């Protein structure tokens, strides 16, 4: 509107131009309303940090920094160390990523480079179905169907690797359990595959056709075209997508709570029972009555919040940077 008034011939001094009327109150009000709704996001994020920090202070004052960084979590003896849960969260999420990364990127390449549009749309619908299956259903299926089945496989693997140096300490051991770090990793992998696939697909779809045709014109096979034209263009975005998936895996609660085995321990044995931050919050919050116990669980939530925010900021940063670089190129 202001551009229009400027383009007009200069109005008489002192009298307002008819087009430069004050905006009606309702118009301004609507803008303020919309801004308020947008700023609500900021308010919620700040409130999450403030309220959980406030509620977790008694954890910090009771056990101190040293206590928090221990691996000993035993509410009956007032030991509230967080490290076993941090370990379990990281290990199960890394396992999930190792499984989900090749599958998701393979799917994204399949959908964008191999199958025709006619076929890729129904496949995308099916992946969306995967994303809509609630996490508690994955957990239920995990504990009642997958865990008993994996128990047998784990047992035979662990007896198979007995005595082999590295493999024995990863997959061996006498206390192999169907519900374990590794089972949680498998379930988490299934759950983060749709998001990594769809984000990677978006990035890969932006690869210029001319780059791809150029590679083909030089005699490249499809795989060489993907390596030479698609991957360099989209690797940043794909890494961002993987990081976002990692953040999701770390925060995933209910499925992990049901299949990770619920015992706070730090061990190299991936087929042993473990625990993760969200899982311990979900399982123990009900029985945590007051004092350092409840505040410790809220503190773990705050820790999880901070970690996932950092991972997400990092991911968005990488995606932004590659997007800017590919625009500039």
């Amino acid at each position, binding site marked *: 509107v202001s551009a229009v008034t400027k383009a007009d011939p200069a109005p008489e001094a002192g009298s307002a131009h008819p087009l430069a009327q004050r905006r009606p109150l309702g118009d301004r009000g609507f803008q303020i309303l*919309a*801004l308020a*709704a947008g700023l609500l996001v900021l308010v919620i994020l700040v409130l999450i940090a403030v309220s959980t920090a406030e509620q977790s202070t008694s954890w910090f004052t009771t056990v101190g920094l040293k206590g928090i960084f221990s691996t000993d979590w035993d509410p009956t003896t007032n030991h509230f160390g967080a490290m076993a849960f941090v370990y379990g969260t990281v290990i199960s999420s890394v396992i999930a990523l190792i499984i989900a990364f090749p599958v*998701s990127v393979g799917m994204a390449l399949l959908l964008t480079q191999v199958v025709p549009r006619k076929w890729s749309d129904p496949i995308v619908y099916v992946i969306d179905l995967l994303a809509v299956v609630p*996490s508690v*259903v994955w957990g239920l299926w995990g504990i009642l169907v997958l865990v008993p089945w994996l128990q047998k496989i784990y047992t035979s693997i662990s007896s198979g690797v007995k005595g082999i140096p590295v493999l024995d300490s990863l997959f061996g051991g006498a206390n192999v359990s169907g519900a374990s770090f590794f089972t949680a990793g498998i379930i988490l992998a299934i759950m983060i595959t749709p998001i990594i696939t769809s984000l990677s697909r978006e990035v890969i779809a932006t690869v210029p056709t001319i780059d791809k045709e150029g590679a083909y014109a030089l005699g490249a*096979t499809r795989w060489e075209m993907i390596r030479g034209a698609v991957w360099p263009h989209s690797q940043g975005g794909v890494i961002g997508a993987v990081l976002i998936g990692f953040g*999701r895996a770390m925060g995933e609660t209910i499925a992990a709570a049901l299949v990770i085995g619920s015992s706070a321990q730090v061990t190299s044995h991936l087929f042993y029972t473990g625990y993760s931050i969200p899982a311990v919050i979900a399982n123990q*919050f009900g029985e945590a009555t007051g004092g350092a116990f409840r505040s410790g669980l809220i503190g773990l939530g705050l820790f999880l919040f901070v970690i996932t*925010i950092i991972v997400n900021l990092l991911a968005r940063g990488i995606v932004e940077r590659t997007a800017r670089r590919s625009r500039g190129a």
Partner: protein
Amino acid sequence: MAVTAEPSRTPQGPSTVDLREPAGWRRTKNQIMTVLMWVALVCVLVPLGFVLYTVIGKGAAAISWQFLSSSTIPPNVLPLGIGGMGPAVIGTLIITGFAALIAIPLGVLGAIYISEYGATGFLGKFIAFLADVMTGVPSIVMGLFIYTIWVIQFGYSGMAGSFALACLMLPIVIRSSYEMLRLVPNSLREGSYALGATKARVTLTVVLPAAIGGIVSGALLAIARAAGETAPLLFTIFTVEATNTNLFSGVNTALSTQIFANATSPYTGAEQRAWGAALTLIAIAFILMIIARLVTARFTRYTR
């Protein structure tokens, strides 16, 4: 020109220009990689098929009219024939419904700010960025958040659960609505300005209706996600055996929290009820998703 020059350099004729797929290792590698991509698809379809097969198989045996409409959830020890998940069905519907009532208008308004008022300014970009970050906040953190600011003061209620779910839905609705508003062509806005409409009027009567198909479909997908969430409800609604239709006071229950509670129960009755509840929950989510697809197909005017 190059074609006519060809025979003089290669006297054997054009047959030496080999346009077939490269032979040998390069071709094999290409084929291996293509096969691996299909294997990735199978890796995704197998768990999905497996979980749907199990849930439908075991859930269908549990579901009956009595299962869906009973007014109390029986103790875990009782077999399947007695009582059902009625209170949880009602809880899920009213808690998710109220969450949608809070999150969808706010989310659409936020998206309007980003797309119509702040598309180029710092504030618009900042809010869009924060909404992106907020989608990554774990759902259990939202539950703890509502617990610390609401439940400690006012106690457990269905409404507290709605607040937690609304916090989860808000950034998703903002994101999807913003994507849709962005697709509305500028000529529509300019045409309405030329007729003398104010910005609010242009937004509400021209831009929003043009994008409504995509916005509704995105909102339905957000509801489908929220309906299946468990973690935000654990510390906000607690649990109850009898139907509580009062959203604003008293403990409540939902399908997802019931499945979580029953999943580790040693009794077969509880286990069967969990499968029945799982099938009900998946059915709700899938129906919402299918409606979203139909809305997209029917009402979307502008696509990428």
